[in-house]
């Protein structure tokens, strides 16, 4: 049986870990609230843009546009959003698995990475990492999304990559986060089907083609921005859950250790008493 002092030391160490995880949980909760607020504020913009683009595509029919057809290059750009910090349960590994366990061939993938956890994992696996924007994930701005969007779009236009994907964790609610792989370019024309019913005529100034030239990159940026803020919310949600579990486990361990400690204390008292009695009876 472990000595009283060992058990006590163990208990104290678990206790301080429990305090840390509890504090981290509280911090994540606050960050989650903030991230959720931001996600909600950006939703109207995102929805409207989506509507506009769907309608624009529906009206333009089957036109051939450079953003609507895949490039000839077999390479696929994947923007992967993970986090800079760990201790968030399966959050990072789930989003990384989307790429490593997906149907992509390693040679065909070009990674645009956001989040140092993802960077480490892809380096280890030997993926081609084209760019890293890990510093934006702490508090993503719309201008960051524009910047990233411009980079991937350039690669698409110059024919370096044929398709662009976004791998991120969608935020459904506080406890449900879904790792999601989304095709950004070419724009998936199946989204158009539902909008076909709407036949309000629309003029484009400048021409339809040019309007698409301008609107699609904006759509791309807003999808990336949406991905970023949802990822931040999911990260904090995942960390909150992980830390909640850790705190509960710590409490459980503390109660087990307290029991053990008391048993050991009682044992040592009993032993001492037996020794005293034995000593006293030896004298008499």
């Amino acid at each position: 049986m472990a000595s009283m002092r060992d058990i006590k030391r163990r208990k104290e160490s678990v206790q301080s870990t429990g305090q840390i995880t509890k504090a981290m949980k509280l911090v994540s909760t606050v960050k989650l609230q903030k991230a959720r607020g931001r996600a909600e504020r950006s939703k109207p913009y995102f929805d409207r843009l989506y509507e506009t683009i769907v309608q624009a595509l529906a009206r333009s029919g089957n036109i051939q546009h450079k953003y609507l057809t895949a490039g000839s290059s077999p390479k696929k750009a994947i923007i992967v959003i993970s986090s800079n910090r760990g201790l968030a349960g399966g959050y990072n590994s789930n989003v990384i698995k989307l790429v490593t366990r997906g149907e992509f061939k390693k040679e065909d993938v070009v990674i645009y990475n956001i989040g140092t956890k993802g960077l480490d994992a892809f380096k280890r696996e030997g993926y081609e990492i084209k760019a890293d924007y890990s510093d934006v994930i702490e508090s993503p701005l719309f201008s960051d999304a524009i910047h990233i969007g411009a980079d991937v779009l350039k690669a698409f236009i110059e024919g370096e990559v044929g398709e662009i994907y976004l791998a991120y964790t969608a935020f459904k609610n506080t406890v449900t986060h879904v790792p999601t792989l989304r095709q950004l370019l070419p724009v998936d024309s199946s989204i158009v089907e539902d909008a076909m019913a709407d036949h309000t005529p629309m003029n484009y100034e400048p021409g339809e083609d040019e309007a698409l030239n301008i609107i699609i990159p904006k759509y791309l940026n807003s999808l990336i921005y949406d991905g970023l803020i949802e990822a931040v919310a999911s990260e904090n949600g995942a960390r909150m859950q992980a830390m909640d579990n850790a705190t509960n486990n710590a409490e459980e361990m503390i109660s087990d250790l307290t029991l053990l400690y008391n048993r050991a204390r009682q044992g040592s008292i009993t032993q001492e008493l037996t020794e005293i009695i034995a000593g006293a009876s030896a004298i008499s």
Partner: protein
Amino acid sequence: MADKNFRLEVISPDRVFYEGDVEMIEFSSTDGDLGILAGHVPLTTTLEPGILKIHEQGGVMKKAALHSGFVTILPKTVTILAEVVEWPEEIDINRANEARIRAERRIKSPAEEGGVDVLRAELALKRAIARINILK
């Protein structure tokens, strides 16, 4: 007679900037300045950095600096999706002045040939001028 007002929504990525019934709006598009009244033909157009003037009912006019984005105009509703839009009181005049000087310098002595930097500086200059004008 149809209603003379129409619904205006100005939405940026981080907030719903403006929402309400208005009589007329004016803004700069890539093809020139536009004034929109109710019952306009459907039109989608892209924006130039400039001033958005919102004429509300009862002759009240509000101004905002509007940079990059596009507008969807339908007879009864107008939706402006702006990447950046600011009320005058949110603009820092000193910063705008500095940005203007910086942009002008860059246009006069381009660091490298190729035109990308000049284009970017021209856009920055337009934004700075829009910000400065709105405060005048």
